[in-house]
């Protein structure tokens, strides 16, 4: 599987945020999207996920430009958890909803265990701290198998131990042929990762 972008231009709020971004990602590879705040890291990831319109340029997956969104995970700043439902119920829902042609990923308990959250399976998501909510959102990566991972500053609110767990999960994903694009400031320990530097559009 190969995700290619040529001269991507993305507008947001009426302003040109991303100008001429190029990248080429295939199985097992990782790409760090770097740049100062406001350089459009989040904007780029949201556009790839189909959550923002692409102003110009081309984005295709193995030559196809259609429904790229259904083969990727997008972990943004909001965790997508309903406070009234338990963490397990939330993840079970996303596992069923984001499943591709019926293929289910790991069980919510298993996915939460990978991020040290096994103890909150039956606790309403509203009780979780910011760091826990972040890890619960990351657990979504495991409940529905999807090859491309778009991670927007995944390490915010994570302690060192959780960052280690994330590193391990990402390494396994790449070993299994998955691809990762991560917008981040802190080093993620993704060895052999390419870098896409976004400057402030002149």
């Amino acid at each position: 599987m190969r995700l290619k972008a040529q001269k991507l231009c993305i507008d947001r709020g009426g302003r040109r945020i991303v100008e001429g971004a190029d990248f080429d990602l295939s199985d097992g590879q990782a790409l760090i999207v770097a740049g100062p705040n406001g350089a459009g890291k989040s904007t780029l990831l949201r556009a790839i996920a189909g959550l923002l319109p692409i102003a110009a340029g081309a984005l295709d997956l193995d030559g196809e430009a259609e429904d790229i969104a259904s083969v990727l995970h997008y972990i943004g700043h909001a965790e997508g958890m309903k406070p009234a439902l338990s963490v397990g119920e939330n993840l079970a829902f996303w596992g069923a909803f984001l499943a591709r042609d019926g293929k289910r990923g790991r069980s919510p308990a298993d996915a939460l265990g990978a991020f040290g959250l096994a103890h909150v399976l039956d606790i309403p998501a509203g009780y979780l701290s910011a760091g826990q909510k972040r890890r619960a959102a990351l657990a979504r990566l495991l409940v529905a198998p999807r090859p491309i991972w778009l991670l927007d500053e995944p390490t915010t609110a994570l302690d060192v131990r959780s960052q280690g767990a994330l590193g391990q999960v990402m390494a396994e994903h790449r070993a299994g042929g998955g691809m990762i694009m991560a917008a981040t400031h802190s080093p993620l320990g993704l060895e052999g990762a390419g870098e896409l530097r976004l400057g402030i559009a002149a």
Partner: protein
Amino acid sequence: MLRYANPSFVLRFVKPAIPICAGLTAILLAVGLYLVFFVAPADYQQGETVRIMYIHVPAAWLGMFAYMVMSSAALGTLVWRHPVADAAQKSAAPLGAMFTFVCLVTGSLWGKPMWGTYWVWDARLTSMLVLLLIYLALIALWQTIEEPQRAAKAAAVMTLVGLVNIPIIKFSVDWWNTLHQPASVFTTSGPAIYSSMLWPLLIMAVGATFLFLTLHMMSIRNEILRRRLDRLTHLAVAAGEARGTASFEPAR
């Protein structure tokens, strides 16, 4: 007084008090119902339907009594900011709403033979309907605000604002009622109360009051346990973190 009002003391005090109250309620209501159906005379005008009075009138009194309890608990919340007062306030609202609803339904059924329809916008019944709306609004307020302290304070202030407004509402509804000369003049106070009717009514009223007290204590206990459960869940989530190192299963 404060030292005695902490939740754990209330839980221990309530444990024996509930069965006693429940027993008293059962006895009083049993005696009352017996008197109502087998001793009290029928009314020369309304005939048998006057027997509805024996639940309609106590329900009305309890609807208002519950609001008084809620208002004093609201004072407890605002003045002493005490969790037990919050619990007492929150648990009184559904009970007050229930009694007011019963008062309205029985009033409507009692009036049907006289009015020909189930509802006439009679001054007293309409005021009780407005009281029910106030109760339902306060219950909705409790359901909407998650954070306990804020919910308690908001409900307390609204309850007291409501308390001040109830007499004003009563007065304006009466004025509205007389202004429009309703189709048929009918007062639900019913016939003059003879002593043979008074006793059953008083016994039923006291029985209903004990019913309210029993249910109120049970509800307060529930609220205290609910808050304790909420706190312990937070602790469990945090505790899980502390011993988290052990629970990081290697990602298989």
